């Protein structure tokens, strides 16, 4: 009878697929964490930009670089913050697309796993009857 080997093979396959799935899920959760971080940063940067916009042109602005405060031009500071916001936004977009990709993969994996499980079950049921 070939069915025991078939079942064994299927089970091995299932195991591999399950591992893949858990890996994917880990990736997704990592993605979520990074995204959370970036979203917080984006909010902070937007706040900074708002405050900078509210400042007078002649106000003294400093940037903390390492241990020292470096005096910065108002325009320069604004440009820096804007650039940062832009960067974060693109990064967020990128993360979104990868997340979508990952979720699609995850769903596909889930489906194949389900199919495999059903196959195994039907095989086992058939064996039990025979």
């Amino acid at each position, binding site marked *: 009878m070939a069915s025991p080997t078939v079942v064994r093979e299927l089970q091995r396959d299932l195991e591999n697929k399950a591992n893949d799935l858990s890996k994917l899920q880990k990736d997704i959760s990592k993605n979520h964490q990074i995204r959370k971080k970036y979203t917080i940063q984006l909010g902070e940067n937007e706040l900074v930009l708002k405050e900078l916009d509210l*400042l007078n042109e002649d*106000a003294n602005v400093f*940037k903390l*670089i390492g241990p020292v*405060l470096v005096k910065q031009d108002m325009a320069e500071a604004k440009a820096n*913050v804007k650039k940062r916001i832009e960067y974060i936004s693109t990064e967020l977009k990128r993360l979104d697309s990868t997340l979508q990709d990952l979720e*699609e993969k995850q*769903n596909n994996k889930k489906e194949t796993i389900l199919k495999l499980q059903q196959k195994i079950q039907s095989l086992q049921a058939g064996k039990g009857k025979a």
Partner: protein
Amino acid sequence: MEAPIKGTVTSLSSLFPVEEAQKASKRVEESRTERQKQLDQLREFAADNNTLINLVQRLPDQLHHDIMVPFGKAAFFPGRLVHTNEFLVLLGEGHYAERTAKQTVEILNRRGKALEVQVEAVKALMQDLKAEASFFDATASESADGLVEIREDYVEETSTKEASMKGMYHLLLIYVLHINGTVKPELTISSEAENVPSVKDEEYDRILSRLAELEKEEEEAENANQEELGEAGSDISLDDVILEEEMKSSELKERGESRFQSTEKFPDNWHVEGSKSTSKENCLPENLAYGKFNLTESAPREPQVKEDAPREPQAKEDVKAPVIAEAKADALPTKPRFDSSKAFTGSIIEHTSDVNSREQSVSRSSKPVSRFKMQRK
């Protein structure tokens, strides 16, 4: 009614195993405590901000303050605070600005407002989670109590006219066949709504007005303009496709909440009476009739959900979700997506989903991942 084996009887515990429901409720509880922590932290920030504002306002009152200057971790030495009207304010991201006390207070006030907004957002989330938790708890207890769900596929021959309207909010008609044989259809509007309540309200108004229009037309003239309605109907179905997309992406708990709201929002007088429904059938738009056909022929849901296949399980969740609500007793008014108390007056409940898809959904129900998908942010 006459045919004995028409519907199916499924115990709720087979659809939603007790342990699964309990697990889900535990998970919701966990995320709730997490949010609570976040909320506490935000409140702390806000309090800190307020004390800081007070301090900054008081500092320039005097030219200098005698203070103890912290030196290292545990040591202090006496010192004097001068330039009491000059502040170096951290704006965030390593940017500092020199401000006066007054300007600083302005900045701090703005910050406080931002914090308030965040607090409100977290509060709303908490409420959603609370609703979800109670939902799962109720499901678990009902499942443990051995509640039974009765379903029957709609058969065209019966005198009842079935109209399925899938509007912006997935209107569903539930027909309750009474034991005495008289058939009295009731229109229950369910919403698998999502997202922002403001949008929802608007759209509800639109649906309501559309329904009102339809009813008026029926009453005034039996032969309503077919083409006009057909057009309106196609609008609906288009929107519907979009809606289905949205529904799937939306969180379960949000649906749970809006479900509750929807039943409240629709007064009983929106239920179409049996006498009217006959005429209503005549002016049904084609695609609605198609939807009905879909239901009555026990066709799978796929035609309506043309989107990608991986989403299918969740679409089935959507189908399945109302089932619990129906099976629920009226003692639980917070849950039902449908007007459950009404829907349960009869012996048999007509439903949009067919046996096949339900069976699939049963088999899937052992997979909690998609059903209890938590909101991640």
